[in-house]
């Protein structure tokens, strides 16, 4: 019994024991964190519940589960698929997101590799220029984009507004991501390049066979960011895309919120829920890559 008691007295934590003040501060921290998570979780849960609540009308009301005002139903989803162009919007958004991610990855691979590995005239100034350019929000150039699009499409009619949107997203992504990828590649020893060159690789092969597999975590993060962008953005599609058949998800769903004729707020909630799906799936698939990438990126800074 005595031995047992003694064991209990061991203080195993590496930290100093908490003082009274420390305990109070700890409680305060928990309070703040709890409050914070309520602020985030409550609206989200309301959205999810509303999406499945058959008793919700066109306007969202507060869900009350207890007094029988909740009734499980898929009618908002049905509405979304049957009465709106939801599937077209999904298709549009996926097309734009995938194309953006693909173009960004492809070009950033080249620019990142070039800036990291080669010394050429204008390297520093152009890096500087890229850094300055990325501080200007893409939206600032909206009139220019508009004119550019009309000029190009008058020559090449197949150049749609969606394509213009892809180019804008990709262009913005290339600027900032070139920096990130360059920094990441700088941390890879150039002796690897040398070894590969002696082993018989051309510059392209050095990238494809040696560097790319090593920077894959960073590439997947860049791909993910570029992919998510079009899902989140509302302003650019709102200005550029005028035909409901061209709408992206964010823009399309917004018509369920702001347009008196098509107003259906629970359907908006349902649509928002579904929109999250592809991103969640992507996160799950890339999880392994992302975690190592984020961790390494954090060390590199």
């Amino acid at each position, binding site marked *: 019994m005595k031995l047992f008691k003694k064991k209990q007295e061991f203080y195993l934590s590496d930290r100093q024991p908490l003082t009274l003040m420390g305990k109070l501060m700890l409680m305060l921290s928990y309070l703040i964190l709890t409050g914070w998570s309520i602020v985030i979780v409550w609206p989200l849960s309301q959205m999810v519940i509303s999406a499945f609540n058959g008793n919700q009308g066109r306007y969202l009301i507060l869900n009350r589960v207890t007094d029988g005002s909740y009734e499980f139903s898929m009618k908002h989803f049905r509405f979304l698929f049957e009465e709106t162009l939801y599937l077209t919007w999904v298709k549009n958004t996926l097309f734009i997101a995938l194309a953006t991610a693909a173009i960004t990855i492809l070009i950033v691979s080249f620019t990142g590799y070039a800036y990291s590995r080669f*010394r050429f005239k204008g390297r520093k100034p152009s890096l500087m220029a890229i850094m300055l350019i990325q501080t200007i929000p893409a939206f600032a150039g909206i009139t220019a984009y508009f004119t550019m699009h009309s000029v190009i499409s008058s020559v090449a009619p197949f150049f749609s507004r969606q394509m213009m949107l892809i180019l804008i997203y990709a262009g913005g992504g290339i600027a900032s991501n070139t920096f990130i990828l360059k920094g990441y590649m700088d941390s890879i*020893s150039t*002796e*690897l390049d*040398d*070894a*590969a*060159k*002696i*082993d*018989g*690789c051309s510059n392209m*092969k050095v990238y494809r066979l*040696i560097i790319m*597999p*090593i920077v894959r975590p960073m590439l997947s993060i860049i791909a993910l960011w570029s992919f998510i962008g079009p899902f989140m953005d509302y302003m650019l599609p709102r200005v550029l895309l005028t035909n409901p058949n061209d709408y992206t998800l964010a823009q399309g769903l917004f018509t369920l919120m702001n347009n008196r004729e098509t107003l259906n707020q629970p359907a908006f909630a349902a649509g928002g829920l579904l929109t999250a799906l592809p991103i969640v799936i992507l996160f799950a698939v890339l999880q392994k890559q992302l975690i190592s990438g984020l961790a390494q990126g954090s060390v590199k800074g």
Partner: protein
Amino acid sequence: MKVSLKNIGKKYEGREEFTLRHIDLDIEDKDFCVILGPSGCGKTTLLRMIAGLNSITEGDLLFNDKRMNKVPSKDRDIAMVFQSYALYPHMTVYDNMAFSLTMRKERKSVIDKAVREAAELLQITNYLHSKPSDISGGQRQRVALGRAMVRRPRVFLMDEPLSNLDAKLREHMRVELVRLHKALETTSIYVTHDQTEAMTMATKIVLMNEGKIQQAGKPDEFYNQPANLFVARFIGSPTMNIFEGMIKDGQFISKDGHIKASPSDKDEASVKAFEGKEVSLGIRSERFLTGDAQEKIEVTVDVVEMLGKEKILYTKLPSGDEIVISVPGHLDFTEDEKYTFGIDHGALHFFDTTTGERINK
């Protein structure tokens, strides 16, 4: 394969000065040539130029009398072991070793045979399917060697390959590398800043400093006949004792007058030519006589370092100049006591103080 460097020079982009200039060097077939020098002397640059990783600003690089200046690395028939090993982290040991042959589109069976042979020789067969991050430093070192061996190069380049290993393993790998060099029958060029590695492994040493070759030749020449003051100071541990002074009546007299040393009969003529001029005298720590001799120095022992087989005495002349003397470990010496040591005429190195060049050839 014979490697010749003819008046090679290298200037990096954006630098005012040449990093290397007027390098003339012949490395015979099957030589184990060690390029030795302090850091920043341009030895790695020289190796990278031979490998084709750095361009050659001036001069010619010849492999068997064929000019190689513009030939890309992969076609030079060379292999290189890097300081950091430069193993491809995403590939297994096997893939790392097979990589160069895969790039040459060799048949699978040929690659497999070559890799297994090399793995056998280096005793890494058990790790063939591990990733480089899962094996120890010594094993990585072997994989790096194996990767270079697999392609059967005609010139084997190594850039400080042992500097990341612990002392024990380094000693072991030194022998192993020499054995490997003999088995492969290639020309090896090895860069290091460690004189022990150079002395033990090389058939030919090239000592460089400040972008110039100071001396090239066999290891024993370096120790017994250093060509100038830099070489004399660089090679040997403890560092050679150097005294400044002048020649008077065919005899060396140090500045403070405490050391008088006559050259041996063989050196007499060449030393006499410097009569009245400033000369530096070099004596290795182990070449002082504990027995009787004609010319003697009297020193006070400051610190005794016991190394087992020998003792290193840090002593002071009456003038305060320090002399390092090593004596057999079984002799007794007490700190702060005075002792006399004899000077061995056969062990004197005379150097011209102004140019630093050796006088007694």
